């Protein structure tokens, strides 16, 4: 009893030390936990898988560096999958640093795609139109940040090219192959195969959902773990085809595309850290019960 009472008053620095150790040790010793993809991630993956080759997908990077460790791996895995399926990602951002986040994820996804191209091509796992060297402007584009969130999405519905006369680097989008339609028609929101938003808070996927009646495009999301309960509602209502939630969502998507990335690497530290936090909650409660009993006995 006394031991638990003492534990209750444990210096919080010990708690910090245990949490740090639970994160660092699995990273150092490379524990590996099996990852089993859940329903919403599998649905997301399958939807991307079935999109017709050459489909252009709009990916909105609605987060900043604070959420990059959680959302970056998701974005990289989804972009890599899209490249392997011959899809053409068009990246934008409703958050000021969205363009930077997109640039980093695109660079990494292109690197993974190029590095695994020969092996996957030999195994026949790439879409027929896939070529080794991806060209910016033809196979993908980073359109950068635009202010307005929902207003910006509304503007895209009216005239997609209007808010994007140039990409993030200042290159004119008029000449870009990615925006060219075979029938010469101006690129419009209706040409977008699907919309994906990597959302860390407000101004993300909800900006697209709120005007879904106007754009009528299928949507999916990547969100931080704390936002899962908030956005899972849209999975249940069928407004989102799928969702990757936090680092576990990224790990599940990586598993589906057979890639060992930051998501899967992060599962061991996250698993142990969750266990440690649970352990502390249990210890805290045992101490609380012990304290209650002592108080009761004293009264009696």
């Amino acid at each position, binding site marked *: 009893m006394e031991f638990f009472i003492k534990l209750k008053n444990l210096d919080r620095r010990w708690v910090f030390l245990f949490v740090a150790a639970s994160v660092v040790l699995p990273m150092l010793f490379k524990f590996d936990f099996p990852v089993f993809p859940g329903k919403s991630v599998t649905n997301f993956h399958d939807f991307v898988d079935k999109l017709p080759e050459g489909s252009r997908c709009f990916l909105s990077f609605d987060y900043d560096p604070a959420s990059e460790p959680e959302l970056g791996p998701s974005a990289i895995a989804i972009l890599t999958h899209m490249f392997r399926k011959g899809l053409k990602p068009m990246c934008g951002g409703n958050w000021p640093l969205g363009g930077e986040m997109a640039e980093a994820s695109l660079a990494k996804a292109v690197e993974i795609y190029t590095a695994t191209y020969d092996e996957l091509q030999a195994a026949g796992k790439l879409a027929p139109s896939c070529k080794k060297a991806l060209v910016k402007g033809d196979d993908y584009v980073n359109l950068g940040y635009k202010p307005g969130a929902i*207003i910006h999405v509304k503007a895209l519905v009216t005239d997609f090219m209007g*808010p994007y006369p140039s990409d993030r680097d200042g290159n004119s989008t008029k000449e870009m192959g990615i925006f060219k339609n075979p029938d010469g028609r101006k690129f419009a929101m209706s040409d977008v195969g699907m919309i994906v938003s990597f959302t860390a808070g407000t101004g993300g996927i909800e900006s697209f959902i709120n005007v879904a009646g106007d754009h009528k495009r299928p949507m999916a999301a990547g969100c931080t773990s704390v936002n899962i309960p908030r956005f899972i509602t849209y999975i249940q209502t069928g407004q989102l085809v799928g969702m990757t939630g936090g680092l576990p969502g990224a790990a599940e998507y990586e598993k589906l595309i057979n890639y060992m990335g930051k998501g899967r690497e992060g599962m061991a530290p996250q698993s142990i850290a969750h266990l440690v936090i649970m352990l502390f909650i249990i210890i*805290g409660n045992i101490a609380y019960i012990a304290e209650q009993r002592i108080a009761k006995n004293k009264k009696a």
Partner: protein
Amino acid sequence: MLFIKRTLPLIITFITGIIMIVAFFSGPALPSVKALEDTFPKWIQVIMSFTMLLGAFSLLRLNLNKISRKVEGWGYSLTLVIGFVTMAVLGFMSGSWPMFERNINVGDKYYLLADDSMSDRPVTVSASSIDEEGNLVVDVIADPVAGQAATEKLVERAPAYRLKSPFMAWINSFQQVLFQGVFKAAQATMFSLLAFFVASASFRAFRVKSKEAGLLMGAAFIVMLGNVPIGNLVSRLLYYIPIIGPSLDIALIKEWILAYPSSAAQSAILVGAMLGYISASMKIIFGVERSHLGGEG
């Protein structure tokens, strides 16, 4: 003055709000109103760009005032102003360098920006030409890297806008060091620290003092376990419990909790929030709520 400060914004708000409502419900029946609804987003985007500028200047003015009056904690304000000005200047310079470096001289040394726009490498321009689309393209030869044996000189074609002078390359690198090395790392660190505070706070405050708290803790444990792969290992262990074991799949229970009880509560919150949103909007449109005009409730 009162008219410009209060009455005119109220009139603009009222007319704009009514147009948006009418446009939403009329659909294509009123094409002129619908056209206005399509134009408004562009106006709002322009206004929002200016508000960002206004916000930036306001932040700067506030902190400069604090520094000049040397109020308590003025050192933080000084750090903010230095960081603000440095990032703004470097950002503007590195973001707009293609506008200033249009003249490419053959034989000169430049830095070729990589596709990720973050890294670059030294090159020498061997030729320049205009491509089929009328853009200036250059042939470049990679400069040998110090300490490495000179290999065959490969000529590479690149768009001229990706070339930078040594000075602009330095500006770009410095900006990237500050962004990647300081800003990005600092933000990620701040967010990561939450794990430590969550652990400490839950240890001290998460007590099962009632049935509801017990239910909350049970749900929290299932979601925490089900959200990470270790939950699958726990499920495998639970499988050996007679009768109920096979149905104790932590990941599935977690998905059920999130998809039904949690989602139902969330939907109710969303509906409530949206009703509040409509009510607040109506109050602003009809001028009942005027705090946005300067603090009057």
